[in-house]
């Protein structure tokens, strides 16, 4: 292959092209799957968003009506946007902080530390399910275990799932509990922090907190960046937790955007309208992601880049 630096353009040889063909053949199952299950439905939903499709009959074009109705006539739209925003602002930092904390604990050199790592990862495999919902209701019921535990400190029972104030928070604990994948990323990041720097700092008299904020966090910033984007994207689309645990209530306090799309598409048979709502969500996610990417040079630090402090 030609080296770009030398400025010579080389025509690709026959064996190069054969290699490319073979490469394409290798990934053809994935390409096929992508086109059929992601690319095509993606643009089909864009088409549906301009129609009044209901899954039971042929779609009829209605132009921008769905988009206009969404912002002006939907009783629940802005409530759902607000609730989703709050959810993301609460759940994502909690999840990142918690997973970082656990990762640091699991970074210690103890016997059987691998067993602990596995155990702490297991909740993330459960996903959202009816079993988990029953577990959550059992824990957070008025006479549930959490309240029983709190009563030993003379705290009166709280309606964790029944009151408007607490329902969203209680529901977001579910995603915090399933912190496994972010934890693993942080753990890998922690292991790359060069020990010499930490020791040098300690020799210079830096305390634990100083080491954490001046060394650990900057070195982890790429992982924080990665986890922040991924977890926010997931959180913005969260559906299973409200669907199985609270049904969107009480009083729409947990009516996340993903649940609203589901209800409109399948319960009210307004699939075209739901497609429009999904596209707005998609745009919001794109804007957020672009914003974080643009801002990243200001706060992320990569070990193998030009300057080292």
């Amino acid at each position: 292959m030609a080296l770009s630096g030398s400025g010579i353009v080389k025509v690709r040889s026959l064996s190069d092209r054969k290699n490319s063909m073979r490469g394409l053949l290798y990934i053809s199952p994935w390409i096929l799957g992508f086109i059929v299950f992601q690319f095509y439905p993606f643009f089909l939903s864009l088409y549906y968003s301009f129609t009044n499709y209901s899954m039971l009959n042929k779609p009829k074009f209605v132009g921008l009506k769905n988009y206009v109705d969404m912002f002006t006539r939907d009783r629940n739209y802005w409530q759902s946007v607000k609730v989703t925003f709050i959810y993301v602002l609460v759940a994502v930092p909690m999840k990142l902080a918690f997973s970082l904390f656990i990762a640091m604990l699991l970074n210690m050199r103890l016997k059987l530390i691998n067993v602990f790592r596995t155990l702490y990862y297991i909740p993330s495999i459960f996903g959202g399910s009816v079993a988990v919902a029953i577990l959550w209701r059992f824990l957070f019921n008025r006479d549930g275990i959490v309240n029983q535990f709190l009563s030993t400190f003379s705290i009166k029972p709280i309606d964790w799932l029944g009151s408007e104030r607490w329902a969203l928070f209680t529901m977001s604990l579910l995603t915090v509990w399933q912190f496994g994948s972010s934890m693993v990323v942080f753990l890998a990041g922690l292991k790359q922090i060069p020990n010499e720097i930490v020791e040098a700092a300690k020799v210079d008299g830096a305390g634990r907190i100083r080491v954490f904020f001046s060394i650990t966090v900057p070195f982890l910033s790429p992982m924080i960046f990665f986890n922040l984007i991924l977890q926010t994207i997931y959180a913005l689309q969260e559906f299973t937790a409200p669907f199985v645990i609270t049904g969107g209530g009480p009083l729409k306090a947990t009516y996340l955007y993903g649940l609203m799309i589901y209800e409109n598409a399948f319960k009210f048979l307004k699939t075209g309208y739901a497609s429009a709502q999904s596209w707005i969500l998609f745009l919001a996610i794109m804007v957020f992601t672009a914003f974080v990417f643009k801002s990243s040079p200001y706060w992320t630090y990569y070990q193998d880049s030009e300057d080292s402090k």
Partner: protein
Amino acid sequence: MKRKLLSLLLILISASTLAFAQAGKPASAAKDVKLRFSWWGADSRHKATLAAIKLYETQNPGVKIEGEYGAFGNFYLKLITQLNGNTAPDIFQVDYKWVYDLLSQNKSWFVDMRTLSDKIDLSGFDMKYAMAWGSADNYLIGLPMGVNAIGLVYNKGLLEKAGVAINDSWDWNDLLDAGAKVKKLGKEYYAAFFNKSYLNYMVKVQIKQKTGNDLITKDYKLGFTKSDMVDVFAYIQKLLDTGTIPPFEEMVPFEMVYADQTPNWLNGKYGICPTSSSLIPSIRAASKFDIGVARYPIYDNAKNPGLITAPTMLLALNSRSPNLPEAIKFANWILNDKDAALVLGDARGMPASSIARTVLAQNNRLDKNIQNMVEKAIPFTGGPEGDLSQNQEVVTILDDYIQQVGYRKMTPEKAAEGLMKDLADKAAEMSKK
């Protein structure tokens, strides 16, 4: 040579991913017919239905019937998706609440049962009843399999202890009186528990009893005045204020389940639960105390008693089924055959077909409590609920306002105003379709 093998392998992999992506189509062999039949229910119904299917298969060699069954929860969603993708079963159950939405969207997908009068014996059915609950715009989507009635189930011991005399002529004030008496037993005792759908139902029934109308009438207008709805919402607040029902914060975790899964019913803290008769067997099995049944409350001087005696489900046929004649034959059998009736028993509520009912009565197979509840309700039947009021968005709108009242976020007046405005908007939208 190695390269050729590799390429061949890759092509095979790609081809097989495509092959599995195709929807499965039933084998259309010359002799063996395969039918798919889907229903919802609890374990007892699944067992009974599977036994009935086995019986049919032995009587009709060459026919294989695959049962697709599960809980009620997501049945509707699954059915819609299947209909959309033309993968719906040959025979399936339909709930009366979906009839309007399904038929108004696309009636061609369902067989109009009246066109089958030469192939299915309709003599055992009250066709007026069937048309009232199972049709829209004169198109009969399915035949009723059982009759369900709404009533009250109560904890005999608890009500006795509290000195509550429950009978079959209660009105809504009697419920409040019972509330006061049960409260004396202790803070954690409540006379009644209404889950989300029963609260919704209570509002609709009270409106029907007051005005004789559904929430939204056939000409897309509201069937009630503001003061009617204010009264109903004020009643809900009274239920809360007097401690007749638990506070909403306590009810919410169990708003989607029935008495047999409500912890405080099971441990004897709630006295009365509304229920439909078909759920009585599972409630009785789960409750470790004596239960009794009573008629649902009706206002004195009600314009229309309003009690729902709906079909437990309707049996519908997929018009695009590749084996329609066989499907029709099976449907006729399961609806009318005497042996089928004996095997199914009251798994689908009290049978709607008089043929089946007679067989069961002769063999002493009708559950006394179910029979009781149905018989007590039938004289007070309110006729079918208007199609428009069963639209899912209308139901959700009402649920939301009930919650606003229940959580004391809105006064009955404000809630009534808001509800009327939103229902009027939705009615206008529906009238344009």
